Each structure stands twice: as C-alpha cells, then as structure tokens.
C-alpha cells in the first residue's frame, strides 16, 4: 500500500525511516547516538573505499559525524513518494557531508586509492588460504580499477555496490538528477570492464 492510500498517517513519516531518531536527537543531542550507530559502518566504509587507508577513513568518519551533530538543526526531511519505502533523507544528507569531507581530504592528501585493499582482507573461508589469497588479489584488482574512475563515476559505483543505495539516493548524495546517475553507472561499469580486460589480458 502506498503512503498516499494510508489515511491518518503522515507520508513523510512513512517514507523517512529515520524521522523519529532525528527528532529525538534534535530535542536532546545526547540522543544522537542511535543515528551514529546505525550509519557508522556505512560512512566508514564509504570513506575507506574513497581514501584507501584506515586512519584517513577514521578521520573522515569522525569529522562527518561531528559535523552532522553540530549541524543537525540544518537538516530537512525531503522524502518523496518516488524514493520508496524505507528511504532516508537523513542518510542522503549524512552522505553528502561525508562526500564533501572525503573530497576535501582527498584534495588535501592528493592521494588516490590505488592499493587500498586491506578491505579485500575479508576472509571468505579461513581454511582456504590459497583461495583467500586469490580472492584478495581479485578484489584488489577490481577495486584498483574502480579507484581509477573519475570522481562521480567512482562515487556512484561505491554508493551502489558497497552502500547498496538506490539510484534516487545516489542522485541525492551527488547532487545530480536520477537520470544522470542512471546513465553514469553503466558508463562506469564499461570503463571498469575495459580496464580489467586490458590489465588481465
């Protein structure tokens, strides 16, 4: 059932799943913690894939959440019916901050995530050491190809594959139209495919 059909219930409340938490945090800033716990891994992960270093990712994550806390008064819910059930404009807002913080940090460090993949150290099977090493190498190669993409293409791929954001959410984070993001992703994937094909040949 769509929110429009549900009488006596606010459409925004239905669409923005973080509304109750955000309102509680606005009333009392010490209630910000549940929002922090919900999004910590996502923000950290995004920062890590963008910066390629755990310490830099921690710095960016810390800065993002402190900025979100001190600027919570600026946040406005903007959920649209098209965003779908479970959408969170707070998440989009938070990721916009993260995107800016990470972009500033990248500019400051002039470092590109060419070899970031401690992330590939995700152990798929602890008994299969060889298989795990191969998986890590594969992941490192794939990520290096994503890391060579230009700005918004790279961000769109990370937000789509790591954060599992919808096209509408990515559009919100990147400040682009949904149509533009929809076109951006296949282009990015083609570039990665060409890059991988060229390097692995």
């Amino acid at each position, binding site marked *: 059932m769509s929110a429009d059909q549900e009488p006596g219930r606010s459409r925004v409340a239905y669409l923005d799943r973080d509304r109750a938490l955000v309102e509680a945090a606005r009333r009392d800033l010490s209630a910000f913690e549940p929002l922090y716990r919900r999004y*910590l891994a996502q923000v950290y992960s995004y920062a890590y894939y963008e910066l390629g270093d755990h310490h830099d990712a921690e710095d960016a994550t*810390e800065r993002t959440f402190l900025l979100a806390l001190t600027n919570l*008064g600026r946040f406005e819910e903007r959920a649209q019916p098209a965003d779908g059930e479970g959408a969170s404009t707070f998440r989009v807002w938070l990721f916009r901050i993260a995107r800016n913080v990470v972009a*500033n940090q990248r500019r400051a460090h002039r470092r590109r995530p060419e070899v970031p993949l401690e992330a590939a150290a995700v152990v798929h099977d602890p008994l299969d050491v060889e298989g795990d090493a191969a998986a890590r190498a594969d992941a490192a190669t794939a990520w290096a190809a*994503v890391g060579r993409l230009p700005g918004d293409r790279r961000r769109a791929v990370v937000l789509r594959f790591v954060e599992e954001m919808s096209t509408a959410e990515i559009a919100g984070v990147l400040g682009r139209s949904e149509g533009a993001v929809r076109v951006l*992703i296949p282009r990015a*994937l083609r570039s990665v495919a060409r890059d991988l094909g060229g390097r692995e040949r």
Partner: protein
Amino acid sequence: MSPPPSERAEADALLTDLYLDALLAARERHATDAPTAAALDPAIRAVAARLAADLDRVHPSFRFEERLAARLAEAAARLRLAMAAGAEASTARRGGTDPARSPDDPADEIGSWPVDADPTGDAEVHGRGRPLLIGGALTSAAISIAGAAAYVAWRRARPLTPLARAVRGVGQGRLAHEPGSPPERLD
C-alpha cells in the same frame, strides 16, 4: 531498424539499474544464482557480478567506534551547555558560510567550509558560545596584567648594579629636588 543512440543509452541505463537492483538483492539474500538479463551487455553483467562479490562493506574497529561515540557524547554535552548558557545562535548558523547558497541545502554549505576548518567541531561549540569567547578575552587580559605586575615586582626586588643604583638615586633626587634649588651631591 535500431533505435537512436540516446534512446539506446537510456534503455541500457534502465536495464542496468534493474539488473543491479536484482543482483544486490540476491547478494543480500546470499542467493547463489545470479539474476538473468539476456538483453544486457555481457561485459556489464560480468563486471557487475564481480564488483558485487568483491566490494564488501568494511567495518571500523570496535575501539574506534567506542572512542567516537564518547567524543560525540562530549560534543553533544558541550553544545547543550552552550545552549543553556543562552547562546542565541542556532546550530544552523555558522560563520564563514556563503549566504548566497541555498539555505535548504545544508550539506552544500557544510561542504563549503575550508579544508582546514576545525575537524573536531570544537570551533562550532566555541563559536556559538559567545560568552566563552568574551571570557577567553578577559582571561587573556587578566593574564597580561598579572604578567606586567609580576615583571615590575621582579624588577623592583632585583639587586641593582652600581650604575642602576646611581640612576635610581638621580631619579629619586630629581623627584625630591625643589625646583630652583641646587642639586645634591652624590658621594
């Protein structure tokens, strides 16, 4: 007859979008079978499947998580104190932002801050608490006055060199000396 390139790109984009939705949903369910989309470019399908398998979410350390939680709680407490102290400025207002920017796009404004802006957010806390700034200025002034007084006291207590004693004696003599009378002789 094939469709014009722009339409084909749009159709491709839409198809990729639907395919990725299905692929990522399958990953979340830990499903082993990849969704099929015969109409989609096989190169895109292959690379999408590879990225879906390889790009996992990375978790921060527990230690970092707890440290940042404590830091946020501290910052929240400071903000509450500043508000309770009667700070007029709302959290939405902050110096250095571009007023021409859309006020309903907070993240953009946050993004417009300089790179070297205080990453801890302490500047925000202090900036909003104007009384803290005034208090700081008063404290600085008090330190300066106390410093000057201590220096004068030290100078006065310091044993004088013969030359300094002579100079002080001349000065005192001048002060005690009546205008028009001859100066006293120094022995």
